């Protein structure tokens, strides 16, 4: 057996589709089972073929996953939503059991799938530190030893004896993360906890993660943020539909992911109206990112406008469904929300039929990087959300460094959620004076 901290041997996890919805009523199940023999009998009598055994659609959230992670390695786990990242992390954390294969772990495992798991709103900050620490697998003695450090890191010292339900969400997150940061396992499994909180908090978290990685611990880190993955991890594993499709140096895998259709999808279609997102009022049929040539593009030049398009069917008259888009960046920050305010349709019910709505995002407005678009259709008053498709489409905004974008001649990192081109106006107030000084 080689030197490994984590080894996956053909790991697989099968889910039955719809199981989650079906479980709940014992009553339903009893009636169904009770009726079944009579149904079968009636089919037999009438000469129709018997029904096939109750069909259950199964799908593999994870399939044939193999890898070895050496001790001290910091590995990023990336992939689209539903690629199996969280499932893999939950198996390694022993929260769910694999259906096939096995995983071997050497060393004490700590997992952080959420910040503040087990926090109780009625308990004080002090009580929650102990409770949460114990839930994460620390010993009470260990928590007591690190108590001051936790309080320091969180910055909520004055409110230690206040129930956390009275905390602001920022304070709550800081305290929760401060406890989690004290976890000192040999293997740390982390899921996207950095996607929450304000940016200064995120910086603090990333700093802490960086520190953990440098202490020689093994870290597996699930994230949507390629920036965080390339910064923190040496290696990345890319999952797609439950399988490992790339495994190698973080920068290469992240770049491959962003270039491929996996990271971005310019057009989504729902051919079957019955399963399309929506309700009895309206159904979403497609969402797309349209370039100024009218075709779907997963990339957009930062200087050129880009259009978001939504096709939907209105199924009932006398409703006024309003299409809207929620645009997020790869850190999960909402860049903006836009809803159709076209005066032509404002407050006017849409007759039954198919509609195409487009909105243009101007050039020189978005920042570089991946943008993820949620598509939604809602009635505004009274507020009803008919359809809300998260991560419907995504596209890359690229700055070609030609010098005529907002970054100008500057080649470094430009921070900011948006990068609008704004009008600058400069006059030389003392031109004459300085000119005379220079040329007396």
């Amino acid at each position, binding site marked *: *057996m080689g*030197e490994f901290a984590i080894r996956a041997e053909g790991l697989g996890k099968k*889910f039955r589709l719809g*199981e*989650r919805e079906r*479980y*709940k*009523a*014992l*009553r339903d*199940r009893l009636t169904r089972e009770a009726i079944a023999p009579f149904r079968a009998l009636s089919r037999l009598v009438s000469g129709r073929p018997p029904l096939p055994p109750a069909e259950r659609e199964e799908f593999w959230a994870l399939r044939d996953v193999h890898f070895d992670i050496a*001790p001290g390695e910091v590995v990023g786990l990336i992939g689209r939503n539903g690629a199996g990242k969280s499932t893999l992390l*939950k*198996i*390694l*954390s*022993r*929260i*769910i*059991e*694999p*259906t*096939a*294969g*096995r*995983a*071997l*772990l*050497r*060393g004490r*495992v700590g*997992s952080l*799938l*959420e910040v503040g*798991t*087990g926090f*109780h709103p*009625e*308990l004080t900050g002090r*009580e929650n530190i*102990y*409770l949460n620490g*114990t*839930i*994460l*697998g620390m*010993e*009470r003695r260990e928590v007591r030893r690190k108590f001051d450090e936790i309080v320091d890191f969180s910055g909520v010292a004055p409110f230690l004896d206040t*129930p956390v339900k009275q905390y602001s969400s920022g304070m709550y997150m800081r305290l929760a993360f401060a406890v989690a940061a004290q976890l000192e396992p*040999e293997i740390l499994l982390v899921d996207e906890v950095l996607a929450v909180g304000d940016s200064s908090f995120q910086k603090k978290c990333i700093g802490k993660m960086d520190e953990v990685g440098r202490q020689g611990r093994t870290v597996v880190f699930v994230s949507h943020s390629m920036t965080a993955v390339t910064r923190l991890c040496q290696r990345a594993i890319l999952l797609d539909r439950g399988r490992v499709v790339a495994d190698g140096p973080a920068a290469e895998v992240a770049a491959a992911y962003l270039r491929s259709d996996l990271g971005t999808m310019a057009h989504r279609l729902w051919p079957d109206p019955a399963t399309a997102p929506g309700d009895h009022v309206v159904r979403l049929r497609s969402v797309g990112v349209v370039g100024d040539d009218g075709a779907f593009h997963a990339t957009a030049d930062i200087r050129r406008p880009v259009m978001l398009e939504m096709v939907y069917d209105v199924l009932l008259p006398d409703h006024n469904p309003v299409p809207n888009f929620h645009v997020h960046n790869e850190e999960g920050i909402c860049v903006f929300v836009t809803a159709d305010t076209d005066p032509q349709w404002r407050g006017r019910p849409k007759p039954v039929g198919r509609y195409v709505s487009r909105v243009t995002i101007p050039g020189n407005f978005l920042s570089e990087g991946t943008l993820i678009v949620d598509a939604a259709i809602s009635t505004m008053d009274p507020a009803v959300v008919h359809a809300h498709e998260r991560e419907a489409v995504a596209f890359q905004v690229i700055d070609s460094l030609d010098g005529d974008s907002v970054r100008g001649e500057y080649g470094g990192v430009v921070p900011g959620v948006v990068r609008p081109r704004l009008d600058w106006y400069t006059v030389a107030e003392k031109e004459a004076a300085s000119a005379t000084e220079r040329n007396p």
Partner: protein
Amino acid sequence: MTKEQFLDSKVQVIEPAWGLRLVDPFELWRWRELFVALMLRDMSVRYKQTAIGIAWVVAQPLATVAIFSFLLGKIGNVPTGGLPYPLFAFTAMVPWQMFSRALLEGSISLANNRSLLTKVYFPRILLPAAAVFGGAADFPVTFAILLLMMLWFGFVPGWQIVLMPVLLLLALLTSLGVALWLSALNVLYRDVQIVLPFLVQIWLYLTPVLYPASVIPEQWRALYAMNPMVTVTESFRWAVLGGAVALDPAMLAVSTVTVFVVLLSGVVYFRSIERQMADRI
């Protein structure tokens, strides 16, 4: 950690499990601190929630006893063995209250801790266990009321009161066994939670809390004793107040066997569902 130490450290294997499983005592011991923390959480949350929380603990059994005292006073004599009816009923109400509370809390413990189940690993059995034993937190309050009542009626407990802890333990083990079954079933079928209060109500009527066990005909007694709460309530009355109806060793034996059958089967069933809990809840 040196390389040698590292290679020596135990390898955990995660793979699909098969067959029946009991609990692993070593693993439970490793997680004892979480058990205590969860129990303390349940207790302190209950007492924090408002003053009415504690008042409720007392009001519920008192009201039931008051209503029955009034009704039975009108209807006629209950053979209480010479005890004043309010004291007779309330005494049995004390362990019953603890039992039913523990059973309710234990049975919904998994559903109540969904986020824990889906986000962290620990032996799941800690949740119903902590809820059941945390449910015992009401006992000191109701017992204090009982002592006041005894003072009022002029009763002094005899030597038998040393048996009280055994009876309380029997009650808690009964609720743990049933709660293991019901909490696991409740993960699969959420209607268990709806039927639960009804079940507890029926169980109360099948237990000699508001009436003495002597009203049950002799030939049904053995069957009756299969309900461990029969032994608990009858014997509790005897342990605290003394009186004619002493602890029946045969009944205690039958009840103890029942408790262990329920507990053992509860553990096995719970463990068989445990693997799917995070997927199904």
